[in-house]
């Protein structure tokens, strides 16, 4: 979030020639307010499994699925980094199936010293009964309200190329902000997708 604030500051500074100081301040305040807004909740879903290992690499050699990096920061509504946040993250495999006997595509991470987290995984598969690709999150941290949410993908064919217009389709996605833009990282011979999913927890 700090990085994005700096980025926003740069952009705003660049736009200063066409904005009055008052407009600039109002815009900055609006951004600040939004940046401290807690991440929207979503349903836990029926397929949570307790006891996942702390594993930053969920991608399994030889298994199908387009490589995906998911990363982000964990903040709170006061704009502070959240130390000791635990993130249960789980998803369906390429075929749209959850592992309910083991821990494939499941992890329980601790956000690092800078309150950052990252997971190397694959784009989750689609399944009939909930056909938007998604990744589940259960995030807890001392002094904060536990957050249950999900990340979705703007490139998902489910949104028919227009997530703004179609995010309410079939009532699956609870809030537009949970649909994240997807970027392509073009490493030689190893292209992979990437999303940033920052978390903002409510303080108790």
């Amino acid at each position: 979030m700090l990085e994005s604030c700096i980025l926003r500051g740069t952009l705003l500074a660049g736009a200063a020639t066409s904005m009055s100081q008052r407009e600039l301040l109002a815009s900055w305040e609006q951004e600040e307010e939004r940046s401290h807004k807690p991440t929207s909740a979503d349903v836990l879903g029926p397929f949570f499994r307790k006891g996942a290992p702390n594993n930053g690499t969920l991608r399994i050699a030889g298994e199908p699925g387009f490589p995906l990096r998911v990363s982000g920061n964990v903040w709170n509504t006061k704009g502070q980094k959240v130390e000791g946040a635990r993130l249960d993250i789980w998803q369906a495999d390429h075929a749209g199936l959850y592992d309910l006997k083991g821990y494939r595509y499941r992890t329980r991470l601790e956000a690092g010293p800078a309150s950052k987290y990252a997971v190397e995984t694959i784009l989750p598969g689609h399944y009939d009964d909930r056909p938007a690709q998604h990744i589940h999150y259960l995030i807890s941290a001392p002094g904060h309200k536990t957050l249950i949410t999900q990340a979705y993908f703007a490139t998902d064919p489910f949104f028919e190329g227009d997530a703004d217009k179609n995010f309410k389709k079939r009532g699956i996605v609870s809030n537009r902000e949970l649909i994240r833009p997807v970027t392509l990282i073009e490493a030689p011979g190893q292209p992979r997708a990437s999303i940033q999913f920052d978390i903002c927890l409510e303080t108790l």
Partner: protein
Amino acid sequence: MQRKLSADVEIGDVVFSTDGKLLRGICRDNKLRAWEISSGAVRQTITFDKGDRGAILTEHGCTTVGEDGTLKAWDLTSGNATKRTPPNSELRPGGAILAANGDLFAFYGRAEVSVRRFDASGKERYAVPSGIGGAAAVAISADGTKIAAATYDADVRAWKASNGELLRTIGELPVSMFALKFSPDGKWLAAGGADRQLYLYDAETWKQTRALSGQPEMISAIDVSGDGTLVATGGFSELTLKNPVKVLVWDVRSGKPVRTFDAAQRVGAVAFGPDSRSLAVSTFSKTVDLWEWP
């Protein structure tokens, strides 16, 4: 032998009347219908209030939650809402289960779930936390002394119904339970869910006494026969809710399935007849399968 009871809308939860002459079912058009088993004819229709949701049906009655969060208990004979709690927006989303003595126990919340007890006059007696992620299943013992709830965080909790004292948190289950049912004598609790196992717990010590494998799909519905000797389980395919599934009837003593029935798609409810020799299977379709055996 298989028979079918039908309606012109989808049917969800089903329960037999205590005399076994009727099967009651919650229908998607916000009505409760009662079919006469002998003829298959609909003999009673109760129309819930507009906007009511979350209907839960037991032998004692039916509950719904109104748009304003009013909990309602419906008398199955008169078809009237005989109890209403004051409106409370906190109680949506949620549902309530009715005890034999008229108490209502509400389970509400999407993230942090709580259970509340309302006495027969509609007065709130307590509210206690009950896990996170939404209530996946609730059950009450026939004598109304114990209640249990499974939440999607994979915990099952049991409380003393009178005062909300937490009797046990069953935290050892790795995945969520989607169905709970007390035995008729209240001495044990059956639980089943995402790992396809049928678990039996002693309802005094809360120790697991059985973990039975055999249900091919995730378990979404459980009933215990009136004589306490049989448990029925039905489920849903992990691929799609539309896939056909199996319904198993287990012998409690041996821990083995003794009957297997086919269901066209995910099972919403299973209900034993009072003679313990018939089973109604509801699949959220327009027909309920009624299986009978000698």
